[in-house]
């Protein structure tokens, strides 16, 4: 049974990734301009031989389906995503690889902080329903949910960098600064990271708290909680041992499902702070219509999200035997 569950999840993730590549292929062929010129990064002065060679390599002289799609698929699998328009002569993979680190740092940390704080806040307000923390927290969560991430970032930037001068206003490091040692460098990155990190965490926190709160409220109405109450268990223990573990699972799944929606909206935070990651890259690529880079970002984010969801599904299956059917 467990093997079948695993196999079904794997096949489903594989199909989704295949659909992503197919969509990317359709987008690539929709673009204005001839495909071999797009693949070569629109470099001027390309000889006829090079164009012909590219055409042959990608099967552009053969029918769209299956030949061209198969060529595209195998190129994608090899990590060959073509050349960037804006960065002449550099491959998309190279450019993406360079920007991945800062984004992972910012959103990895931001997600962890938001999940921990959001779940704690949501669990507490759901438990003490109608209390002061619940009212204030719920109102705050709704307002945070209504605020675009970048707007929150602009507000924090105005208050804490421009107004109070506590943090630097942009970038990941102070330009042209010489460091006394690795600790000094780390402190500089930390100071630059503080505001974008606060923005990402606050932006995500609201919706995680809302999700966890309703999940806790739902669980507290279940029969096994009533049973635990009837047994005379103390409230704190009911929450800890009976309600929380069961409320946590759907919340974590919903967080995983919402990842695509959240991450994509949150990349705009990078633009506000000029953080040198995928978000800033996306907006720059959009301004210069650097389609190969845009498609690369889309592919990278989609595949990461599908794999993240797969991981969440597998963990869920491990923890809750009811879903392994």
């Amino acid at each position, binding site marked *: 049974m467990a093997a079948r569950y695993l196999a079904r999840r794997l096949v489903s993730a594989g*199909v*989704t990734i295949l*659909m*992503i590549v197919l*969509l990317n292929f359709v*987008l690539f062929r*929709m*673009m*204005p301009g001839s495909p071999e010129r797009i693949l070569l990064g629109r470099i001027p002065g390309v000889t006829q031989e090079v164009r012909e060679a590219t055409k042959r390599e990608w099967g552009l002289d053969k029918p769209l389906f299956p030949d061209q799609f198969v060529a595209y698929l195998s190129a994608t699998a090899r990590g060959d995503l073509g050349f960037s328009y804006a960065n002449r002569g550099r491959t998309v993979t190279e450019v993406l690889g360079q920007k991945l680190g800062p984004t992972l740092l910012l959103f990895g940390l931001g997600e962890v902080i938001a999940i921990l704080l959001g779940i704690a806040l949501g669990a507490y307000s759901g438990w003490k329903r109608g209390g002061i923390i619940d009212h204030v927290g719920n109102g705050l969560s*709704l*307002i945070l*949910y*209504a*605020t*675009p991430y*970048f*707007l929150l970032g*602009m*507000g924090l*930037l*105005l208050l804490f*960098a*421009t*107004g109070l001068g506590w943090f630097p*206003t*942009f970038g990941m490091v102070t330009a042209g600064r010489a460091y006394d040692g690795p600790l000094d460098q780390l402190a500089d990155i930390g100071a630059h990271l503080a505001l974008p990190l606060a923005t990402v965490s606050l932006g995500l926190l609201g919706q995680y708290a809302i999700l966890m709160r309703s999940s806790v*409220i739902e669980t507290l*109405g279940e029969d096994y909680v009533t049973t635990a109450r009837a047994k005379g268990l103390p409230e704190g223990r009911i929450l800890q041992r009976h309600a929380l573990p069961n409320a946590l699972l759907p919340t974590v799944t919903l967080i995983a*499902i919402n990842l*695509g*929606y959240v*991450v*994509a*909206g949150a*990349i*705009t935070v990078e*633009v*506000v702070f000029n953080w040198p990651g995928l978000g800033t890259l*996306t*907006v720059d690529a*959009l*301004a210069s*219509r650097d*389609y190969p880079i*845009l*498609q690369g*970002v*889309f592919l990278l*984010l*989609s595949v990461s*999200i*599908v794999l993240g*969801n797969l991981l969440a599904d597998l963990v869920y299956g491990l923890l809750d035997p009811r879903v392994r059917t």
Partner: protein
Amino acid sequence: MTAPVLPFAAGSVARSTGGRLDLVRQVLQRSNGLVGVVILAAFTVLALVPELFVGPLQTAVTATGPRLGPPSAEFPFGTDELGRSVLNLTVHATRISMVIGLLATIITVGIGAVVGIVSGYVGGRFDAATMRVADFFLVIPTFVLAIILTAIIRDILGTGSKEIAGIRLSLLVIVVVIGITSWSSTARIIRSQTLSLRERTFVDRARVIGASGGHIMRRHILPNVMNLIVANTVLTFAGAILTETTLSFVGLGDPFQPSWGQLLEAARSVGAPGLGAWWYFVPSGAGVVLVVFAFTLLGNALDEVLNPRRRARS
């Protein structure tokens, strides 16, 4: 519990016009519903007749103020880098943001409702295939897809300064793209409701007397998922305004018909937060937050009225 639990919105609430009025009354009786409706009514007035409050939209030519001037008696919200009144721009942007949001919502809910009803009613392979596609759209980062689609479609159409019904083509592209990329959650919700309706006696009865599938979907399923569609429309509207704002912020807005997102983008690109020019982006930012907040409150109020499970607990 004596009565069997019916799936919500399939029950007796709001079958007739009187029922629908009853729904409005119940929503307005809740504090979150009332606050939401009042805020939205205020912004709707601004969107309908911005000229009445601040005169025609100022341009670089008609601008009279100082550059990036702070709030003063003449310019209550200060001025932008061209000397235009930020109050004037923000009030006019209300119309663009709300109209784009409304059109995008209509397309999103339209696609979602049709796909959901047909898929749920027809079932079988068709249902499996469409839900596969819907799940695909739920998982992928649709915002990045929307960026690419908007850019490509604009490049193909060569939008320029073309207008349809007073709205620039570049903005209509955004409307369509939001619709294409965000229908899936509506479709999923409507489909699950349709699945349960399909098994109900009145649908069987209609089928037995020889009603066609199209007739049953239009006359029997649609009226019974209408409340669900209304509740979903409210939440979709909030999402559409957020998406439009974010798309404009990354540079896909139209400077000639500025929305709130477009103003925020302009403020960021002249470095308003770094220069301490809070007046440039706080008004349009407040507009976005208030409207989305109001829609969320209204959506919650509707959900509480329509969903008996939530009503029992709150």
